[in-house]
């Protein structure tokens, strides 16, 4: 049994070594089983899709560049200026609404309390002096 297997392997190797085909060529040879029309259609569609893919890629690159630079030149300055104007107007409105800021209010309240305290102390000392 082993001898027969050995013989078969030798014959296979003998036949294989005599053929000048690589593995890929043998695989490609398998496609010959399909009819000619199908093979040519597949070839045409593959080439077509490859070229379309390349053109789409280069077109999208150019379109992105053209679009970005044109947008930068045509639209961006106006957008910057309108945003800045809007911000300034908002700030002005906020200032008018809020009135004094919190810190300023705190400080002015402290000052008021200090002035009242001083006045009371003076009144007290005057009263005692009067007494």
């Amino acid at each position: 049994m082993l001898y027969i297997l050995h013989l078969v392997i030798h014959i296979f190797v003998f036949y294989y070594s005599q053929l000048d085909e690589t593995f890929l060529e043998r695989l490609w040879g398998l496609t010959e089983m399909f009819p000619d029309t199908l093979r040519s259609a597949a070839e045409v569609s593959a080439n077509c899709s490859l070229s379309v893919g390349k053109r789409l890629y280069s077109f999208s690159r150019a379109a992105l560049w053209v679009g970005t630079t044109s947008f930068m030149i045509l639209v961006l300055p106006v957008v910057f200026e309108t945003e800045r104007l809007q911000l300034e107007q908002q700030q002005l409105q906020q200032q008018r609404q809020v009135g004094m800021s919190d810190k300023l209010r705190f400080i002015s309240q402290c000052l008021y309390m200090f002035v009242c305290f001083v006045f009371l102390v003076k009144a007290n000392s005057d009263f005692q002096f009067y007494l």
Partner: protein
Amino acid sequence: MGSVLAASSPNPPGAGGGTQGGPGLVTVPPGFTMPPVVPGTPGQPGTESDGSLLNPGTFEECHRKCKEVFPIQMEGVRLVVNKGLSNHFQVSHTITLSTLGDSGYRFGATYVGSKQTGPAESFPVMVGDMDNTGSLNAQIIHQMTTHVRSKVAMQTQQHKFVNWQCDAEYRGDDFTAAVTLGNPDVLVGSGILVAHYLQSLSPALALGGELVYHRRPGEEGTVTSLVGRYTGSNYVATLTVGGAGAHASYYHKANDQVVLSFSPLPVAPHLQVGVEFESSTRMQETSVSFGYQVDLPKANLQFKGSLDSNWVVGATLEKKLQPLPLSLALGAFLNHRKNKFQCGFGVTIG
């Protein structure tokens, strides 16, 4: 041929001639064109109360409203100092630093006479400017009678005379006729004669024609063209058809309410739009351009952008820096087809 005609300005001395230096001065547009009759909307025909027609303006001003919306190409650095010395006299200094051309200094002077013909107009007007290389541009505009206005202009390149022309314009009740004689040379027998006629047929419609006769020793030729202009409530459409090609332009001033609904601000930016179609038989090419102008008076900003069928994109931004009498202009032009970019900025003082 275009540089000889009164329509185009071959060497504009920047914004120097166009700002106020005193209360009585006329804003004279730089270049070889006549100053506008009415400041604001020149050449806008309309009806008086009894229905008669108004003067249609000059021939060159037909396409001007659309052309003013487009930005001009700026290159390099430009500093302009305008100074008004009196009610009648104004002086401007311009320093141009350029990467492509020559850098130089230009001195310009404007004198406005005392014969007052209108609220913002006085004659005679003498405008001149001289380059650091000695090139001189000069023009004298004078109102001879109430209907006739004449102009003499000349331009030299260093010491050589390049352009010399004189023209006379008659403004009737509802028509304008002008005759221009350009570069007349009696010794050689050459010259260019241009005749313009513009008639307003209705308050909105004006038709006219132009005849150009040029003569050189050995050859002479004639080019004619017709122009029609229709003015609507907020748009102007003009068409010029002639031997040199066709030129159609449409100018539209967008309704402020419509723009307000699109703008993010509570204040509407003023939007003006212009579309231009040009075809030339000499160069065998056509082009379509789209331009727009956005005015933000609150931000003291004026922005002009343009888009061309030759794959050229350009924009100009002008901002007044308050409270100083300073004005900053930035410009950029990008040619996508040739992949060339040009930018420039300018500062105007006064």
